[in-house]
Protein backbone atom coordinates (compact mmCIF):
# COMPACT_ATOMS: atom_id res chain seq x y z
CA UNK A 1 0.00 0.00 0.00
CA UNK A 2 1.16 3.48 -0.85
CA UNK A 3 -0.93 5.60 1.49
CA UNK A 4 -1.19 3.38 4.55
CA UNK A 5 1.18 1.41 6.68
CA UNK A 6 -0.39 -1.08 9.07
CA UNK A 7 1.56 -1.14 12.32
CA UNK A 8 -0.25 -4.07 13.78
CA UNK A 9 -3.04 -6.36 12.82
CA UNK A 10 -6.19 -7.46 14.59
CA UNK A 11 -4.51 -8.37 17.87
CA UNK A 12 -7.64 -7.87 19.94
CA UNK A 13 -9.85 -10.01 17.76
CA UNK A 14 -7.17 -12.67 17.59
CA UNK A 15 -6.94 -12.82 21.39
CA UNK A 16 -10.62 -13.70 21.84
CA UNK A 17 -10.33 -17.48 21.60
CA UNK A 18 -7.23 -17.72 23.77
CA UNK A 19 -7.12 -14.97 26.37
CA UNK A 20 -8.49 -14.49 29.83
CA UNK A 21 -6.19 -16.72 31.89
CA UNK A 22 -5.85 -13.99 34.54
CA UNK A 23 -2.17 -14.61 35.27
CA UNK A 24 -0.96 -11.13 34.39
CA UNK A 25 -0.33 -8.33 36.83
CA UNK A 26 -3.11 -6.17 38.22
CA UNK A 27 -2.57 -2.71 36.79
CA UNK A 28 -2.60 -0.66 39.99
CA UNK A 29 0.03 -2.92 41.54
CA UNK A 30 2.62 -2.08 38.94
CA UNK A 31 3.39 1.57 39.49
CA UNK A 32 0.77 4.20 39.50
CA UNK A 33 -1.69 3.38 42.28
CA UNK A 34 -4.01 6.11 41.09
CA UNK A 35 -5.15 5.65 37.55
CA UNK A 36 -5.75 2.96 35.08
CA UNK A 37 -4.06 1.97 31.86
CA UNK A 38 -4.28 -1.66 30.91
CA UNK A 39 -2.56 -1.62 27.55
CA UNK A 40 0.85 -1.25 29.19
CA UNK A 41 0.53 -4.50 31.10
CA UNK A 42 2.41 -7.55 29.89
CA UNK A 43 0.55 -10.64 28.78
CA UNK A 44 2.02 -13.59 30.61
CA UNK A 45 0.81 -16.46 28.54
CA UNK A 46 3.72 -18.19 26.88
CA UNK A 47 3.91 -17.27 23.18
CA UNK A 48 2.93 -20.75 22.05
CA UNK A 49 -0.56 -20.50 23.45
CA UNK A 50 -1.12 -16.77 23.64
CA UNK A 51 -3.76 -15.46 21.31
CA UNK A 52 -2.24 -12.02 21.47
CA UNK A 53 0.99 -13.37 20.10
CA UNK A 54 0.46 -16.36 17.96
CA UNK A 55 -2.01 -15.19 15.38
CA UNK A 56 -0.42 -11.95 14.36
CA UNK A 57 0.00 -12.02 10.65
CA UNK A 58 2.73 -10.16 8.87
CA UNK A 59 2.04 -6.43 8.52
CA UNK A 60 0.92 -5.22 5.13
CA UNK A 61 3.98 -4.40 3.06
Amino acid at each position, binding site marked *: *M*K*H*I*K*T*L*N*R*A*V*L*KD*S*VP*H*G*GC*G*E*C*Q*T*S*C*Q*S*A*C*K*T*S*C*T*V*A*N*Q*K*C*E*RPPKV*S*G*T*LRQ*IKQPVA
Partner: protein
Amino acid sequence: MVHSYALFGRYIAIDVHSGAVHELDRAAFDVLQKGLLFEPLNLTPEQAEAREELLALKEDGLLFTEPEAVTVNYADLPLKALCLHVSHDCNLRCAYCFAKTGDFGTGRRLTMPPEVAERAIDYLLARCGGRRNLEIDFFGGEPLMALDTVKHTVTYARRAAPDKNFRFTLTTNGVLLDDGVTEYLNREMSNVVLSLDGRRQVNDAARRLVPDGGSYDEILPKYRHVIATRTGDYYVRGTYTKRNTDFAEDIAHLASLGFRNISLEPAVLPPGHPLALTEEDVPALCRQYELLCERMAEDGSFAFFHFNVDLAQGPCVYKRLRGCGAGVEYAAVTPEGDVYPCHQFVGREEYRMGSVLDGSFDKDISSWFSDIGAEGREDCRTCWARFYCGGGCAASNLTVNGDIALCDRLGCALEKKRLECAIYLKTLKSGIY
Protein backbone atom coordinates in the same frame (compact mmCIF):
# COMPACT_ATOMS: atom_id res chain seq x y z
CA MET B 1 -15.37 2.53 15.38
CA VAL B 2 -12.23 4.24 14.15
CA HIS B 3 -10.28 6.94 15.97
CA SER B 4 -8.02 8.99 13.72
CA TYR B 5 -5.80 11.85 14.81
CA ALA B 6 -2.83 13.94 13.79
CA LEU B 7 0.17 14.52 16.02
CA PHE B 8 3.47 16.19 15.12
CA GLY B 9 2.72 15.83 11.42
CA ARG B 10 1.87 12.14 11.55
CA TYR B 11 -1.57 10.71 10.89
CA ILE B 12 -2.76 7.69 12.79
CA ALA B 13 -5.91 5.56 12.73
CA ILE B 14 -6.92 3.09 15.42
CA ASP B 15 -9.52 0.48 14.58
CA VAL B 16 -11.05 0.18 18.02
CA HIS B 17 -12.59 -3.29 17.90
CA SER B 18 -9.90 -5.21 16.06
CA GLY B 19 -6.97 -3.44 17.73
CA ALA B 20 -5.35 -2.71 14.36
CA VAL B 21 -3.32 0.50 14.14
CA HIS B 22 -2.48 2.23 10.86
CA GLU B 23 -0.28 5.08 9.91
CA LEU B 24 -1.74 7.18 7.11
CA ASP B 25 -0.54 9.79 4.69
CA ARG B 26 -2.40 13.07 4.42
CA ALA B 27 -4.70 11.90 1.61
CA ALA B 28 -5.85 8.80 3.51
CA PHE B 29 -6.27 10.85 6.68
CA ASP B 30 -8.47 13.38 4.89
CA VAL B 31 -10.63 10.61 3.44
CA LEU B 32 -11.26 9.29 6.95
CA GLN B 33 -11.69 12.61 8.70
CA LYS B 34 -14.01 14.10 6.10
CA GLY B 35 -16.21 11.05 5.83
CA LEU B 36 -15.18 10.50 2.20
CA LEU B 37 -14.85 6.78 2.69
CA PHE B 38 -18.60 6.33 2.66
CA GLU B 39 -19.51 9.45 0.65
CA PRO B 40 -16.83 9.80 -2.02
CA LEU B 41 -17.52 13.32 -3.30
CA ASN B 42 -15.02 15.46 -5.21
CA LEU B 43 -12.06 13.23 -4.48
CA THR B 44 -8.61 14.19 -5.69
CA PRO B 45 -6.81 11.37 -7.54
CA GLU B 46 -4.64 10.84 -4.45
CA GLN B 47 -7.69 10.62 -2.21
CA ALA B 48 -9.39 8.19 -4.59
CA GLU B 49 -6.34 5.95 -4.44
CA ALA B 50 -6.13 6.21 -0.66
CA ARG B 51 -9.83 5.43 -0.41
CA GLU B 52 -9.34 2.18 -2.30
CA GLU B 53 -6.66 1.19 0.18
CA LEU B 54 -8.88 2.05 3.15
CA LEU B 55 -11.70 -0.02 1.67
CA ALA B 56 -9.32 -2.95 1.28
CA LEU B 57 -8.44 -2.70 4.96
CA LYS B 58 -12.10 -2.66 5.85
CA GLU B 59 -12.57 -5.75 3.73
CA ASP B 60 -9.68 -7.38 5.58
CA GLY B 61 -11.22 -6.78 9.02
CA LEU B 62 -8.76 -4.05 9.93
CA LEU B 63 -10.94 -0.95 9.76
CA PHE B 64 -14.50 -0.27 10.93
CA THR B 65 -14.59 -3.74 12.42
CA GLU B 66 -17.79 -4.74 14.18
CA PRO B 67 -17.59 -5.40 17.93
CA GLU B 68 -16.86 -9.00 18.83
CA ALA B 69 -19.31 -10.68 21.17
CA VAL B 70 -17.05 -11.32 24.14
CA THR B 71 -18.38 -12.74 27.36
CA VAL B 72 -16.35 -11.63 30.33
CA ASN B 73 -17.41 -13.56 33.42
CA TYR B 74 -16.07 -10.82 35.56
CA ALA B 75 -18.11 -11.55 38.66
CA ASP B 76 -16.71 -15.08 38.98
CA LEU B 77 -13.04 -14.19 38.80
CA PRO B 78 -10.91 -15.28 41.74
CA LEU B 79 -9.04 -12.85 43.97
CA LYS B 80 -5.36 -12.78 43.03
CA ALA B 81 -3.85 -9.53 44.26
CA LEU B 82 -3.78 -7.85 47.66
CA CYS B 83 -2.59 -4.46 48.70
CA LEU B 84 -1.53 -4.89 52.32
CA HIS B 85 -1.68 -1.69 54.34
CA VAL B 86 0.97 -2.86 56.75
CA SER B 87 1.25 0.57 58.30
CA HIS B 88 -1.43 3.17 58.77
CA ASP B 89 1.14 5.64 59.83
CA CYS B 90 3.55 7.76 57.86
CA ASN B 91 6.73 9.73 58.40
CA LEU B 92 5.95 12.32 55.73
CA ARG B 93 3.10 14.81 55.50
CA CYS B 94 2.24 15.13 51.81
CA ALA B 95 -0.17 17.86 50.82
CA TYR B 96 -2.28 15.69 48.49
CA CYS B 97 -2.27 12.44 50.50
CA PHE B 98 -5.41 10.36 49.94
CA ALA B 99 -4.45 8.36 53.04
CA LYS B 100 -4.83 11.58 55.07
CA THR B 101 -1.25 11.39 56.41
CA GLY B 102 -1.38 7.64 56.79
CA ASP B 103 -4.36 6.79 58.98
CA PHE B 104 -6.98 7.16 56.21
CA GLY B 105 -8.94 9.58 58.36
CA THR B 106 -9.57 7.03 61.09
CA GLY B 107 -7.56 8.84 63.75
CA ARG B 108 -5.81 5.54 64.56
CA ARG B 109 -2.15 5.08 63.61
CA LEU B 110 -1.71 1.34 63.40
CA THR B 111 0.76 -1.28 62.28
CA MET B 112 -0.52 -4.56 60.89
CA PRO B 113 0.34 -7.33 63.36
CA PRO B 114 2.07 -10.37 61.81
CA GLU B 115 -0.96 -12.55 62.65
CA VAL B 116 -3.26 -10.33 60.60
CA ALA B 117 -0.80 -10.49 57.71
CA GLU B 118 -0.86 -14.30 57.95
CA ARG B 119 -4.65 -14.29 57.83
CA ALA B 120 -4.48 -12.05 54.75
CA ILE B 121 -2.28 -14.58 52.97
CA ASP B 122 -4.62 -17.41 54.03
CA TYR B 123 -7.56 -15.36 52.75
CA LEU B 124 -5.88 -14.87 49.38
CA LEU B 125 -4.95 -18.55 49.12
CA ALA B 126 -8.51 -19.58 49.94
CA ARG B 127 -9.92 -17.34 47.21
CA CYS B 128 -7.33 -17.50 44.41
CA GLY B 129 -8.60 -20.68 42.75
CA GLY B 130 -6.14 -21.98 40.19
CA ARG B 131 -4.21 -18.72 39.76
CA ARG B 132 -0.50 -19.32 40.01
CA ASN B 133 0.78 -15.74 39.97
CA LEU B 134 -0.29 -13.97 43.14
CA GLU B 135 0.56 -10.38 43.96
CA ILE B 136 1.17 -8.72 47.28
CA ASP B 137 1.91 -5.01 47.40
CA PHE B 138 3.13 -3.60 50.69
CA PHE B 139 1.58 -0.21 51.06
CA GLY B 140 0.59 2.24 53.74
CA GLY B 141 0.94 4.82 55.10
CA GLU B 142 4.61 4.03 54.88
CA PRO B 143 5.24 0.27 54.76
CA LEU B 144 8.86 0.51 55.91
CA MET B 145 7.48 1.62 59.30
CA ALA B 146 6.28 -1.99 59.55
CA LEU B 147 9.27 -3.78 58.04
CA ASP B 148 8.99 -6.66 60.51
CA THR B 149 5.49 -7.38 59.25
CA VAL B 150 6.70 -7.16 55.65
CA LYS B 151 9.45 -9.71 56.29
CA HIS B 152 7.13 -11.97 58.24
CA THR B 153 4.57 -11.91 55.41
CA VAL B 154 7.10 -12.80 52.73
CA THR B 155 8.41 -15.77 54.70
CA TYR B 156 4.94 -16.94 55.68
CA ALA B 157 3.52 -16.73 52.14
CA ARG B 158 6.38 -18.65 50.55
CA ARG B 159 6.09 -21.38 53.17
CA ALA B 160 2.31 -21.57 53.04
CA ALA B 161 2.15 -22.08 49.27
CA PRO B 162 5.43 -23.09 47.66
CA ASP B 163 3.60 -23.95 44.43
CA LYS B 164 2.40 -20.36 43.93
CA ASN B 165 4.48 -17.65 42.34
CA PHE B 166 4.23 -14.77 44.81
CA ARG B 167 5.23 -11.39 43.48
CA PHE B 168 5.99 -8.92 46.21
CA THR B 169 6.15 -5.22 45.58
CA LEU B 170 6.56 -2.30 47.93
CA THR B 171 5.69 1.37 47.58
CA THR B 172 7.82 3.65 49.76
CA ASN B 173 8.53 7.31 50.44
CA GLY B 174 12.18 6.41 50.96
CA VAL B 175 12.76 7.98 54.36
CA LEU B 176 13.63 4.71 56.12
CA LEU B 177 15.75 3.19 53.36
CA ASP B 178 19.25 2.25 54.48
CA ASP B 179 21.74 -0.27 53.13
CA GLY B 180 20.22 -3.20 54.99
CA VAL B 181 16.64 -2.39 53.97
CA THR B 182 17.71 -1.80 50.37
CA GLU B 183 19.50 -5.11 50.26
CA TYR B 184 16.37 -6.85 51.58
CA LEU B 185 14.05 -5.12 49.09
CA ASN B 186 16.38 -5.83 46.19
CA ARG B 187 16.42 -9.47 47.11
CA GLU B 188 12.73 -10.06 47.83
CA MET B 189 10.65 -7.51 45.92
CA SER B 190 10.00 -8.01 42.23
CA ASN B 191 9.22 -4.30 41.93
CA VAL B 192 9.74 -1.30 44.17
CA VAL B 193 7.91 1.97 43.70
CA LEU B 194 9.89 4.96 44.94
CA SER B 195 7.94 8.16 45.51
CA LEU B 196 9.44 11.45 44.37
CA ASP B 197 7.63 14.29 42.60
CA GLY B 198 10.39 15.73 40.42
CA ARG B 199 12.24 19.01 40.83
CA ARG B 200 13.39 19.83 44.36
CA GLN B 201 11.09 22.81 44.80
CA VAL B 202 8.08 20.88 43.47
CA ASN B 203 8.77 17.83 45.60
CA ASP B 204 9.51 19.82 48.71
CA ALA B 205 6.41 21.96 48.41
CA ALA B 206 4.26 18.83 48.76
CA ARG B 207 6.32 16.06 50.35
CA ARG B 208 7.23 17.36 53.79
CA LEU B 209 9.24 15.69 56.53
CA VAL B 210 7.92 15.54 60.10
CA PRO B 211 7.98 17.96 61.89
CA ASP B 212 8.99 20.06 58.88
CA GLY B 213 11.35 20.38 55.95
CA GLY B 214 11.62 19.20 52.36
CA SER B 215 12.29 15.51 51.74
CA TYR B 216 14.16 15.71 48.40
CA ASP B 217 17.72 15.89 49.72
CA GLU B 218 17.05 13.22 52.29
CA ILE B 219 15.65 10.59 49.93
CA LEU B 220 17.37 11.15 46.58
CA PRO B 221 20.70 9.54 47.56
CA LYS B 222 18.77 6.55 48.93
CA TYR B 223 16.88 6.03 45.69
CA ARG B 224 20.08 6.31 43.72
CA HIS B 225 21.55 3.61 45.89
CA VAL B 226 18.49 1.38 45.33
CA ILE B 227 18.71 1.56 41.56
CA ALA B 228 22.49 1.26 41.51
CA THR B 229 22.28 -2.04 43.40
CA ARG B 230 19.07 -3.43 41.93
CA THR B 231 18.44 -5.87 39.10
CA GLY B 232 14.64 -6.17 39.56
CA ASP B 233 12.06 -3.68 38.34
CA TYR B 234 11.55 -0.30 39.87
CA TYR B 235 9.52 2.83 39.24
CA VAL B 236 10.17 6.31 40.46
CA ARG B 237 6.69 7.61 40.90
CA GLY B 238 5.40 11.09 41.58
CA THR B 239 2.22 13.10 41.71
CA TYR B 240 1.49 16.37 39.99
CA THR B 241 -1.01 18.95 41.12
CA LYS B 242 -2.34 22.40 40.26
CA ARG B 243 1.01 23.71 41.48
CA ASN B 244 3.08 22.08 38.74
CA THR B 245 1.04 22.06 35.57
CA ASP B 246 4.44 22.16 33.82
CA PHE B 247 5.10 18.62 35.02
CA ALA B 248 6.98 17.54 31.87
CA GLU B 249 9.87 19.40 33.50
CA ASP B 250 9.58 17.14 36.52
CA ILE B 251 9.73 14.02 34.40
CA ALA B 252 12.74 15.44 32.54
CA HIS B 253 14.33 16.17 35.89
CA LEU B 254 13.78 12.61 37.13
CA ALA B 255 15.27 11.28 33.88
CA SER B 256 18.27 13.60 34.29
CA LEU B 257 18.89 12.07 37.70
CA GLY B 258 19.39 8.71 36.02
CA PHE B 259 16.00 7.13 36.73
CA ARG B 260 14.91 4.93 33.85
CA ASN B 261 11.33 3.96 34.76
CA ILE B 262 9.19 6.91 35.63
CA SER B 263 5.54 7.40 36.43
CA LEU B 264 3.94 10.73 37.26
CA GLU B 265 0.24 10.85 38.03
CA PRO B 266 -2.32 13.60 38.34
CA ALA B 267 -3.42 14.06 41.96
CA VAL B 268 -6.98 12.93 42.48
CA LEU B 269 -8.54 15.33 44.92
CA PRO B 270 -12.09 16.36 45.76
CA PRO B 271 -13.39 19.39 43.85
CA GLY B 272 -12.49 22.60 45.68
CA HIS B 273 -9.20 21.30 47.12
CA PRO B 274 -6.54 23.99 46.55
CA LEU B 275 -4.28 21.54 44.71
CA ALA B 276 -7.05 19.90 42.64
CA LEU B 277 -6.69 19.96 38.87
CA THR B 278 -9.73 21.22 37.01
CA GLU B 279 -11.07 20.89 33.48
CA GLU B 280 -9.62 24.31 32.61
CA ASP B 281 -6.18 22.77 33.13
CA VAL B 282 -6.74 20.10 30.47
CA PRO B 283 -5.21 21.94 27.47
CA ALA B 284 -2.08 22.84 29.45
CA LEU B 285 -1.75 19.31 30.84
CA CYS B 286 -2.21 17.74 27.39
CA ARG B 287 0.51 20.03 26.10
CA GLN B 288 2.80 18.67 28.80
CA TYR B 289 2.25 15.11 27.57
CA GLU B 290 3.08 16.32 24.07
CA LEU B 291 6.29 17.93 25.30
CA LEU B 292 7.18 14.71 27.07
CA CYS B 293 6.41 12.76 23.90
CA GLU B 294 8.66 15.04 21.83
CA ARG B 295 11.43 14.60 24.34
CA MET B 296 11.08 10.83 24.34
CA ALA B 297 11.14 10.75 20.55
CA GLU B 298 14.67 12.20 20.83
CA ASP B 299 15.81 10.56 24.05
CA GLY B 300 15.20 6.83 24.42
CA SER B 301 17.02 6.58 27.74
CA PHE B 302 13.94 6.40 29.97
CA ALA B 303 10.42 4.97 29.94
CA PHE B 304 7.22 6.64 31.06
CA PHE B 305 4.66 4.26 32.59
CA HIS B 306 1.67 5.37 30.53
CA PHE B 307 3.60 5.42 27.26
CA ASN B 308 4.69 1.77 27.58
CA VAL B 309 1.89 0.56 25.32
CA ASP B 310 2.86 -2.56 23.47
CA LEU B 311 0.75 -2.65 20.34
CA ALA B 312 1.48 -6.18 19.21
CA GLN B 313 1.93 -8.10 22.44
CA GLY B 314 -0.23 -6.29 24.95
CA PRO B 315 -2.95 -7.93 27.00
CA CYS B 316 -5.85 -9.92 25.63
CA VAL B 317 -9.28 -8.43 25.14
CA TYR B 318 -10.59 -9.89 28.42
CA LYS B 319 -7.92 -8.20 30.48
CA ARG B 320 -8.60 -4.94 28.70
CA LEU B 321 -12.29 -5.09 29.47
CA ARG B 322 -11.83 -6.07 33.09
CA GLY B 323 -9.62 -3.09 33.77
CA CYS B 324 -8.02 -2.65 37.17
CA GLY B 325 -9.82 -5.51 38.91
CA ALA B 326 -10.65 -3.51 42.07
CA GLY B 327 -13.16 -5.25 44.30
CA VAL B 328 -12.97 -8.44 42.26
CA GLU B 329 -9.46 -9.67 41.49
CA TYR B 330 -7.80 -7.08 43.65
CA ALA B 331 -8.50 -5.85 47.19
CA ALA B 332 -6.84 -3.91 49.99
CA VAL B 333 -6.45 -5.04 53.59
CA THR B 334 -6.13 -2.64 56.56
CA PRO B 335 -3.93 -3.22 59.63
CA GLU B 336 -7.08 -4.48 61.41
CA GLY B 337 -7.78 -7.00 58.66
CA ASP B 338 -10.68 -5.18 57.01
CA VAL B 339 -11.06 -5.70 53.28
CA TYR B 340 -11.81 -2.88 50.81
CA PRO B 341 -12.11 -2.91 46.99
CA CYS B 342 -8.74 -1.19 46.59
CA HIS B 343 -6.24 0.98 48.45
CA GLN B 344 -8.14 4.16 47.60
CA PHE B 345 -11.41 2.98 49.15
CA VAL B 346 -9.91 2.24 52.54
CA GLY B 347 -11.71 4.17 55.27
CA ARG B 348 -14.96 4.58 53.30
CA GLU B 349 -17.19 2.50 55.52
CA GLU B 350 -19.87 1.83 52.93
CA TYR B 351 -17.22 0.02 50.85
CA ARG B 352 -15.94 -2.27 53.59
CA MET B 353 -16.22 -5.70 51.94
CA GLY B 354 -15.29 -8.07 54.72
CA SER B 355 -12.44 -9.17 56.93
CA VAL B 356 -9.51 -11.53 56.56
CA LEU B 357 -10.09 -12.51 60.20
CA ASP B 358 -13.44 -14.20 59.57
CA GLY B 359 -12.95 -14.86 55.84
CA SER B 360 -15.92 -12.72 54.79
CA PHE B 361 -16.15 -11.16 51.31
CA ASP B 362 -19.24 -9.18 50.36
CA LYS B 363 -20.34 -10.38 46.93
CA ASP B 364 -22.80 -7.51 46.59
CA ILE B 365 -20.13 -4.86 46.91
CA SER B 366 -17.92 -6.88 44.59
CA SER B 367 -20.72 -6.88 42.01
CA TRP B 368 -20.87 -3.06 42.04
CA PHE B 369 -17.38 -3.27 40.59
CA SER B 370 -17.78 -6.28 38.34
CA ASP B 371 -20.76 -4.56 36.72
CA ILE B 372 -18.72 -1.56 35.63
CA GLY B 373 -15.78 -2.77 33.55
CA ALA B 374 -15.08 -0.88 30.35
CA GLU B 375 -18.31 -2.29 28.91
CA GLY B 376 -20.41 -1.33 31.91
CA ARG B 377 -19.81 2.41 32.08
CA GLU B 378 -21.79 4.50 29.69
CA ASP B 379 -18.95 6.87 28.82
CA CYS B 380 -16.60 3.96 28.20
CA ARG B 381 -18.93 2.05 25.89
CA THR B 382 -18.62 4.79 23.29
CA CYS B 383 -14.99 5.68 23.97
CA TRP B 384 -12.29 4.80 21.43
CA ALA B 385 -9.73 4.39 24.23
CA ARG B 386 -11.49 1.71 26.22
CA PHE B 387 -9.34 -1.24 25.16
CA TYR B 388 -6.23 0.69 26.20
CA CYS B 389 -7.59 2.37 29.29
CA GLY B 390 -9.66 -0.48 30.69
CA GLY B 391 -12.45 1.72 32.01
CA GLY B 392 -10.67 4.16 34.25
CA CYS B 393 -10.51 4.45 37.99
CA ALA B 394 -13.57 3.84 40.16
CA ALA B 395 -11.92 5.62 43.06
CA SER B 396 -11.33 8.83 41.08
CA ASN B 397 -14.88 8.65 39.80
CA LEU B 398 -16.12 8.47 43.37
CA THR B 399 -13.87 11.29 44.58
CA VAL B 400 -14.74 13.61 41.72
CA ASN B 401 -18.33 12.67 40.84
CA GLY B 402 -19.59 10.82 43.89
CA ASP B 403 -20.28 7.68 41.82
CA ILE B 404 -17.89 4.87 40.92
CA ALA B 405 -19.55 4.50 37.51
CA LEU B 406 -19.45 8.18 36.45
CA CYS B 407 -16.19 8.79 34.63
CA ASP B 408 -13.86 11.50 35.83
CA ARG B 409 -13.78 13.59 32.65
CA LEU B 410 -10.47 15.19 33.47
CA GLY B 411 -8.90 11.77 33.97
CA CYS B 412 -10.38 10.57 30.68
CA ALA B 413 -9.09 13.56 28.71
CA LEU B 414 -5.59 12.97 30.05
CA GLU B 415 -5.74 9.23 29.47
CA LYS B 416 -6.73 9.72 25.84
CA LYS B 417 -3.94 12.21 25.26
CA ARG B 418 -1.40 9.85 26.86
CA LEU B 419 -2.57 7.03 24.61
CA GLU B 420 -2.36 9.17 21.48
CA CYS B 421 1.20 10.07 22.44
CA ALA B 422 2.10 6.47 23.28
CA ILE B 423 0.85 5.21 19.92
CA TYR B 424 2.55 8.09 18.10
CA LEU B 425 5.86 7.02 19.62
CA LYS B 426 5.28 3.54 18.18
CA THR B 427 4.89 4.97 14.68
CA LEU B 428 8.34 6.54 14.70
CA LYS B 429 9.97 3.34 13.59
CA SER B 430 7.39 2.43 10.99
CA GLY B 431 8.96 4.27 8.06
CA ILE B 432 5.99 5.44 6.01
CA TYR B 433 7.56 8.93 5.75
